């Protein structure tokens, strides 16, 4: 997005990756992966994956009675619709989280390539600084917002992961009237891939990387599963969907790059298969059953990011119709250009009615593109600031992993990064979305993690600043008191390696 300080490669004069621009290109690849993380996470935390079903039934029954249903009809329908919500909300969350996990994997894979070729990857302070943001170098540009689950947010996700070239902004609803210049992330990566196979590249496998076999990456956790209607668990990532790759030579570097592209956009279907991999030619979302090649691996077990988002989008549309119909309303497919093929468009117009009939039951009313400064409540502001600091510290620790080897790296990853992501950041995000504030427009919103980089001062260690921020936040909101020990237990990572007091060793003392 607009984070890179240098001109993005594909918006510059270069269209081919070569020896001169490769260091910039591979860093740009890392930053593309980093840029997607706050976008997907923001939407993820807007979803209440586990609403209280009893409360849902009560609310739905009241709504159905108000819509003119009999008591018996309302009771039966409320049970059915509540189950729809329980499955959809959890599934949407699981699918988005399964993509987030793979985006973090992609950040590590591209970092491994950079480390093995031109050296230390830069991960700190690379989060987009203004919103809406834009993918660096993507033609055409399209705005990316941090927003709650909606047709618009999902359509943006589809644009990000699109394997097909996008239409120029403003012409999305029309068949392309004129040829325009555009590209995809996959095309950019294929340029890097070509260069990696050239004789110009020298590989340094002795430099520290995040390698497989150490437990750093796992494609399924409890957060990437959901329960179907019969409450049987469903895993969203296939067991063999990909792993870290130790980059030692051209072959492993190319394999790493291919894994990124295949997981994101999917592999190219066989010519003549008749399968579609992306958006329809007119920019609409393809919800026709059986018309999508949905896998990101040739064995066919794993769905690509694009297809995962496609499913969340199409199910959202399906349930919008179903819920509106149950309430006695029929939703026209606003902007629908080809109803017979079940293609749907104009996400913004769909969103105008979406909340009224469906998402109000499980999507939190979080603001769009908030910054900490927007929060009028001091308690919310302090917890949001702490959340940003932990979020930033995760990137600091990740960057430091590329300076550490062996057990020190393992401890840093497992007891620093892993713990921060799941047991500190996740908890803070959950706490924040449970808080509310009155915005300047006079309306009440749920707070949300803003995922802004927190700029640590150089006068003291980042960890000591984390502890200070925690002390301040817990003073304003004691609901986070249980996180104190976890923060104190984090490793102490300096902002710059030369500030490391004991070179090569980590301190865990608070």
């Amino acid at each position, binding site marked *: 997005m607009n984070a890179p300080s240098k001109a993005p490669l594909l918006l510059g004069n270069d269209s081919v990756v070569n020896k001169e621009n490769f260091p910039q290109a591979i860093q740009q690849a890392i930053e593309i992966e980093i840029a997607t993380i706050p976008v997907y996470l923001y939407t993820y935390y807007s979803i209440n994956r586990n609403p209280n079903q009893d409360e849902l039934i009560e609310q739905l029954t009241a709504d159905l009675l108000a819509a003119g249903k009999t008591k018996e009809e309302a009771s039966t329908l409320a049970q059915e619709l509540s189950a729809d919500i329980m499955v959809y909300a959890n599934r949407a969350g699981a699918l988005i989280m399964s993509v987030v996990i793979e985006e973090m994997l992609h950040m590590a894979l591209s970092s491994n390539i950079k480390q093995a070729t031109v050296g230390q990857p830069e991960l700190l302070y690379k989060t987009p600084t203004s919103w809406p943001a834009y993918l660096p170098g993507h033609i055409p540009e399209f705005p990316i917002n941090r927003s709650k689950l909606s047709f618009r947010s999902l359509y943006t996700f589809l644009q990000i992961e699109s394997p097909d070239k996008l239409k120029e902004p403003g012409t999305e609803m029309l068949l392309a009237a004129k040829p325009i210049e555009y590209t995809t992330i996959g095309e950019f990566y294929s340029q890097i891939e070509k260069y990696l196979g050239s004789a110009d590249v020298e590989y340094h496998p002795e430099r520290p990387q995040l390698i497989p076999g150490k437990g750093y990456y796992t494609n399924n*956790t409890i957060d990437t599963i959901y329960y179907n209607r019969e409450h049987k668990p469903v895993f969203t990532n296939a067991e063999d969907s990909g792993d870290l790759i130790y980059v030692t030579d051209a072959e492993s570097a190319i394999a790493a790059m291919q894994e990124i592209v295949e997981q994101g956009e999917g592999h190219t279907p066989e010519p003549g298969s008749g399968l579609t991999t992306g958006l329809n030619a007119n920019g609409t979302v393809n919800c026709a059953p059986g018309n999508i090649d949905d896998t990101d691996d040739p064995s066919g077990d794993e769905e690509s990011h694009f297809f995962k988002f496609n499913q969340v989008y199409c199910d959202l549309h399906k349930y919008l119709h179903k819920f509106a119909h149950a309430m006695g309303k029929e939703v026209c497919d606003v902007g629908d250009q080809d109803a017979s093929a079940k293609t749907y468009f104009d996400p913004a117009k769909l969103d105008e009615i979406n909340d009224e009939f469906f998402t109000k039951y499980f999507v939190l009313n979080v603001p769009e593109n908030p910054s900490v400064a927007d929060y009028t409540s001091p308690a919310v502001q302090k917890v949001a600031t702490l959340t940003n600091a932990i979020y930033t510290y995760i990137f600091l620790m990740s960057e430091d992993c590329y300076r550490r080897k062996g057990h020190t790296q393992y401890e840093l990853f497992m007891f620093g990064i892993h713990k921060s992501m799941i047991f500190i950041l996740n908890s803070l995000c959950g706490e924040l979305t449970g808080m509310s504030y009155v915005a300047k427009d006079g309306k009440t919103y749920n707070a949300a993690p803003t995922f802004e980089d927190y700029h640590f001062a150089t006068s003291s260690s980042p960890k000591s600043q984390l502890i200070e921020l925690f002390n301040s936040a817990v003073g304003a909101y004691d609901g986070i008191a249980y996180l104190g020990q976890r923060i104190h237990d984090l490793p102490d990572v300096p902002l710059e390696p030369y500030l490391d007091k004991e070179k090569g060793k980590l301190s865990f003392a608070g």
Partner: protein
Amino acid sequence: MYIFNNTHFLYDSCGGRGSSCGSSNGCGSSSKGEKDITTPLELHACMGLNACKGHDRFGTNACAGQGFCATQTHVCHTLNNCRGQGGCGLYGDASEQCRPGANDCAWQGSCATPIQAERFSTQGPNAGKSTWLLARKLFEERMAKANRTVGPSPFPSGPPQKWLQSVAANGEYDSCGNSGDKYCSFGYNSPAKNAEEMIEASREALKDTCTECKKVEEDEKRESQAQQ
């Protein structure tokens, strides 16, 4: 088989924005006057995984493998202090999830203790299968190597979640993650039947699971030696 014989366990609605991780060892304090160990001799992950007499939460078990409840409390992956305390399942890679309750070191081993009967692993050969059964199998192997007699676990498939809730000091038990309650129904299933099916399938597959897990461990060692 005695797994879930209390009919009130059959039906519950789901959901609610609770904490993402449990914070209890599932047993709370005894209300019946049994000894509630505050400094147990051995810290372990769950019911039926104690190595010695008197090493369960209440200090009353007669034999190895017969104890009620975990003797230590931790909530999730990397938050345990000692060897053998990782509950496993839910988070962690294939190798880690092949060693529930048998981690080598502090802060290793995934997820909350105790391991409720309904918990399934999320990665590796045990994915989708009972975590407690694998933990018990590994415990029995460890005891066999030590020439120890192991008694039956109070619950043959591990402590049911509802039972853990019934004995918890605050009446709550949950485990890690955002995907929701493992034991529940949206109105179209019996959670007890789901759990029983999962446990029975896991029991049938246990031998193969252990074989596959050994392969995972060997692969990991080989991979680790080949790199750096």
